[in-house]
């Protein structure tokens, strides 16, 4: 089947997204996104979508099953609340990449800005470069792999997500601590790196997670 091609200079976004929502299978090329918001948001089937150019906010938001490649940079909240499938970005990602995402794989080849993986709920995120401050804030579940450095307050108020960082961490947020890398963590990390197309030595990484000291408010209500 020939790939379907949409040109966002000619076809309104609403029409493109609507068509993608109804597509059962196939490959789609989207040209000239020119920073438009919500490109390929709400996909729900196992289609392949290539977005050729830079995207605005919420590209591939809430993705289900689809494999999306962004040949360019992505704006705020790329793949936010993704459920499954994958989103691969060849450039950099702005704030809140993969925010609240429940599943699937998000790969950012370049850097990701602040709040990467904020409130993540099961997604796997692999960042080729570094990540900004407040990343993995209140991260509940899933794995975040950072091949570069992490900004301030990494993993503040983190729950059960696991963070693997190769470079320097500017500072850890409340209740986030460095943890031992046991065999299962090396294996898990190796598998994640492989899925994203990297073959780093996992011994160079440090694992971070919750000290679980904020799990109870100690706020009683006695009379």
């Amino acid at each position, binding site marked *: 089947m020939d790939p379907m091609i949409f040109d966002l200079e000619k076809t309104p976004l609403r029409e493109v*997204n609507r068509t993608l929502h109804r597509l059962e299978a196939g490959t789609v090329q989207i040209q000239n996104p020119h920073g438009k918001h919500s490109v390929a948001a709400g996909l729900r089937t196992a289609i392949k979508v290539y977005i050729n150019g830079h995207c605005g906010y919420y590209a591939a938001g809430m993705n289900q099953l689809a494999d999306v490649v962004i040949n360019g940079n992505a704006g705020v909240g790329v793949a936010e609340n993704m*459920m499954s499938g994958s989103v691969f970005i060849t450039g950099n990602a702005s704030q809140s990449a993969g*925010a609240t995402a429940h599943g699937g794989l998000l790969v950012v080849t370049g850097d990701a800005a602040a*709040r990467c993986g904020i*409130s993540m709920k099961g997604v796997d995120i692999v960042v080729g470069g570094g990540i900004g401050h407040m990343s993995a804030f209140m991260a509940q579940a899933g794995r975040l792999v950072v091949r570069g450095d992490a900004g301030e307050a990494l993993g503040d108020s983190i729950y059960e997500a696991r963070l693997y960082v190769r470079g320097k961490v500017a500072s850890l947020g409340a209740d986030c601590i460095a943890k031992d890398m046991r065999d299962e963590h090396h294996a898990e990390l190796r598998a994640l790196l492989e899925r994203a197309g990297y073959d780093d030595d996992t011994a160079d990484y440090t694992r971070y997670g919750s000290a679980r000291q904020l799990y109870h408010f100690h706020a009683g*209500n006695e*009379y």
Partner: protein
Amino acid sequence: MSDGLRESATFDRATIHAIQRAAATGVYDIRGWGAKRALPHFDDLLFLGASMSRYPLEGYREACGTDVVLGGRNAAYPIHLDIPVTIAGMSFGALSAQAKEALGRGASEVGTSTTTGDGGMTPEERGQSKHLVYQYLPSRYGMNPDDLRRADAIEIVLGQGAKPGGGGMLLGQKINARVAAMRTLPQGIDQRSASRHPDWTGPDDLTIKIQELREITDWEKPIYVKIGASRTYYDVKLAVHAGADVVVVDGMQGGTAATQDVFIENVGIPTLAALPQAVQALQELGVHRQGAKGVQLIVSGGIRTGADVAKALALGADAVAIGTAALIALGDNDPRWSAEYEALGSAAGFYDDFQDGRDPAGITTQDPELAARLDPVEGGRRLANYLRVLTMEAQTVARACGKAHVTHLEPEDLVAVTIEAAAMARVPLAGTDWIPGSAR
């Protein structure tokens, strides 16, 4: 107690007890319910019934419409409600699954909507709710695009009247296996809901977020924006600019499942003060009461009676939402559980420990034995009865004022009995033509 004892107005019994409690425990008080302090409210307004210059409608006989349409501005499928009283968002987690189902049943029986809450959509409430509004909250607990598509409308929550600027909390005793799984959190931990949305900040971002939600749902669903009343005039303007189809304004009396007492009693403004500000904002933008092209206003926070409903509509709301009153209708604070309330250190009529999970009425709990005390069918029937009474009461007042539809009530039908209420509601003090603060 001797007749000569005089209670201090400054240090009253509740205040003294609060100091003693704080001194004994070193922790602040968290509770449910809403503000308990006296505030200017709908009680301080009265209707001017028809007289020589106004013509009343015949009670019971002449039609007085109650239906409302919400969210026609952008959505392919606006919501048509038979009555202007909706059920506010209350989370599964805060409430039992049976309570959520009962709310859906009661609301559907009289043709109105119910709303999910922080914690996602349950099949029980979706199944029993004819019109279900799906909340989009900072925590995004349980948020998923399938439920978004299953919903009849989407409500982006910026805040609640009980705690504008506050996040949420659900204490560990209410996080059972099902609640934990829906929220992707470990069982039994105290769980915090964020106070800020994770992927947008400010009104310009909100515009883009609203557009995203529309794109994901193919522009089918009305999008509401809910705000806790504080800077209401500006917030409503910004919400409308951002693209809201419906604005929900929740005043400080509004209920909560678990918030610090200091927050509930001291942050936000009363419903009566917020409502005219919201209406002014909508009027200035040319979207107030403009039919399908307009933006509708839902007001909540301390709505108890059909008179409250009628007064809110007269001041310019298109509909109201109820939380606490709906729980009471289901059986919350019922005297039949008096002994158990007392065993918990409370009493029927005073119980506010919704955070605690030991609700004798089985409503604000995840304990299977307690939750089983509420029969969703019976609870739904009681709620439907209550909603019918609210509607009939509002109609009674509207007919007396000569209105063929409850939303035809207007500020001109109202006066205030206190100066404060006159200033806030922007209606004259009874017997005068004085509206404090208005430049005449």
